[in-house]
């Protein structure tokens, strides 16, 4: 590419420029945007070829392919601890990791809103590139479209990932059995409250940072123990409560969790209290739930705690026989209640 003479009259004005409709036209302006912003930042052998798709090598013999996709529409685009770019990599990498897979390749599709500052786009793509590099995945193909002003929130990013899983590894939401132990990799609510605090313009004593992170390294360390991890799930939208309910229903089991055992950052707890939210329902982007036989729990928990992303991992409860698939919780006060699916929106109390 560097050997051919540039076909563009003027370089892209990254500092002042904005996305306009011509950037999505498929013409020269599109090509210039893709070369200057995307290919430059994400540079790899597949993208460099400039083809419509990527031709990829097969994973090791005997392994199985895993594929997953995720759309990202977060607002604001930038938040403490990350931005939509890093999030779009972590989201899909984690979806693969929750299948016990080693993620390899990603595709990325961008919907840009006319008027988006090019500097913002560059920041986002740069942070995608860094997240991908850290995670050891390669963004091998992509697409860009532009929609008119007012028809998008700056940028939407959809990513699809491919990875592979080996051996008998088979985590699945329907494999929880009565007596199993429920483990959680760390504090809950950090991502959701980082976003909320930006939206509501709230200032808290200590800033809340999103926990957005790629979890496949942690998962690899957990799989290396040899424990049969029956269920792996990242409690994203809907939070811990929703994810536990999903697993309970898939498995046809109930659960009892212990509120005192669930780690919550102080600042997150304070922000939730202030806004009348329950951290159990607030989103996470760098945490996982693992369910295993009680006999394996200690070993698995130790492996989690030994990993940087699982330092505050905890045992939070157990799976029980319950045809109604209810998730119960022992409250910190010593009482008991159930933790239901989120009912509609959380509205402000009036009295």
């Amino acid at each position, binding site marked *: 590419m560097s050997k051919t003479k540039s076909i563009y009259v003027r370089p892209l004005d990254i500092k002042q420029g904005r996305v306009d409709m011509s950037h999505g036209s498929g013409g020269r302006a599109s090509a210039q945007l893709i070369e200057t912003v995307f290919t430059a930042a994400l540079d790899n052998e597949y993208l460099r070829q400039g083809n419509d798709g990527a031709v990829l090598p097969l994973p090791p013999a005997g392994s199985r392919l895993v594929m997953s996709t995720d759309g990202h529409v977060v607002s604001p685009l930038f938040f403490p601890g990350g931005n939509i770019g890093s999030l779009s990599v972590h989201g899909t990498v984690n979806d693969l990791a929750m299948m016990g897979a080693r993620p390899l390749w990603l595709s990325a599709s961008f919907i840009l809103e006319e008027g988006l500052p090019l500097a913002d786009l560059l920041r986002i793509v740069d942070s995608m590139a860094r997240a991908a590099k850290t995670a050891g995945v390669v963004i091998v193909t992509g697409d860009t479209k532009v929609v008119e002003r007012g028809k998008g929130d700056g940028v939407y990013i959809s990513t699809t990932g491919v990875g592979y899983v080996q051996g008998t590894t088979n985590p699945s939401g329907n494999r929880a059995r009565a007596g199993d132990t429920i483990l959680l990799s760390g504090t809950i609510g950090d991502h959701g409250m980082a976003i909320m605090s930006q939206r509501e313009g709230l200032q808290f004593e200590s800033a809340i940072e999103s926990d957005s992170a790629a979890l496949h390294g942690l998962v690899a360390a957990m799989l290396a123990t040899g424990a049969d991890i029956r269920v792996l799930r990242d409690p994203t939208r809907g939070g811990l409560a929703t994810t536990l309910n999903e697993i309970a229903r898939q498995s046809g089991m109930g659960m009892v969790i212990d509120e005192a055992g669930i780690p919550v950052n102080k600042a997150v707890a304070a922000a939730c209290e202030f806004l009348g939210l329950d951290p159990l329902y607030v989103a996470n982007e760098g945490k996982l739930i693992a369910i295993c036989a009680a006999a394996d729990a200690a070993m698995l928990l130790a492996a989690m705690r030994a990993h940087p992303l699982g330092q505050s991992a905890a045992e939070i409860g157990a799976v029980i026989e319950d045809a109604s698939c209810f998730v119960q919780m*022992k409250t910190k006060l010593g009482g*008991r209640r159930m933790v239901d699916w989120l009912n509609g929106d959380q509205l402000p109390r009036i009295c």
Partner: protein
Amino acid sequence: MKYVDEFRDGVLAKNLAASIAQESRPDKTYRLMEFCGGHTHALSRYGLLGMLPANVQMIHGPGCPVCVLPIGRVDLAIRLALEHDVILCSYGDCLRVPASEQMSLLKAKARGADVRMVYSALDAVKIATQNPTRQVVFFAIGFETTTPPTASVIKQAQASGLKNFSVLCNHVLTLPAMEAILTQPGGVPLQGLVGPAHVSTVIGSQPYQSITSRFRMPIVISGFEPLDLLQAILMLLRQVNEGRAEVENEFTRAVTPEGNRKAQALVDEIFEVRDSFEWRGLGSLPVSGLKIRAAFAEFDAELRFPDLVYRNVPDHKACECGAILRGEKRPQDCKIFGTVCTPDNPVGSCMVSSEGACAAHYTYGRYTDSKGMP
């Protein structure tokens, strides 16, 4: 957050629960009503009901503003929004209350009515200022807690000469409802009342004296935190056991005997007591609701839109909200609880508000139903 943690301490809670167990006499049944929906919610949310001995039973009261609003009043708001082309401003909780002909404010909105959710009465005034060519009506509901803010915006609207703002007033009074509960024929026998927190910060603890003396009914005013509630329950048990019937104040950090005089004066300036007002469950109660005084008549939506006539509409046939609000039945006694009627698809008002007994039991307590636990 230290402040909050103090009131959610597990060790203190266990000690209080133990004291309650010790104080309760096995030969007695203590039926205590928490009047306020905020307390109903807290009891379920913190799992306190399961910490009480079997003979200490909490009966849910009518102190949930959304729950006691009869269908006919919601119909008025819907008609204003659909037929009079007003901007109807409402608290979020009211939007999903089922009204006549399977309507609700939310459904009216879907049909094109201009219904807006507001967080305070002040928001409604702002909307009126921003839309001078439209009539803006604030759907005011609530007990003594939410009345002063409504009074304040009416006063403000008059001072600024706001011509396109009015209030559909549904404000109600706590004491007449308590009295109705205690005098209804065939009602549940109660041994004590947990008095409301926020309402009492406004009216004070003194007014409850009439109830304690007339009905020999112990009352303990309680804060909203779980430890407040456990403490209040313990205090009620002691009163019952010692044969006392007094107004006691657990919530001394916010409630005084005389209450908030300023707020009371403001409310008195703007509102007067209606001859009677219709409550869901309790029927038409004399001197139990407020209306806007003649001096502020221009801000009374019921006068500004004269064809707005209240009609009494019966509840859904299967819905037990009435009996639940009177303390006679529990949510799980309703035949359609959790099947036809859920928070996503409420049939009655008690399933709508988070303070409603049905919503609280659905969200936090229904796992106990199949097992015959408390």
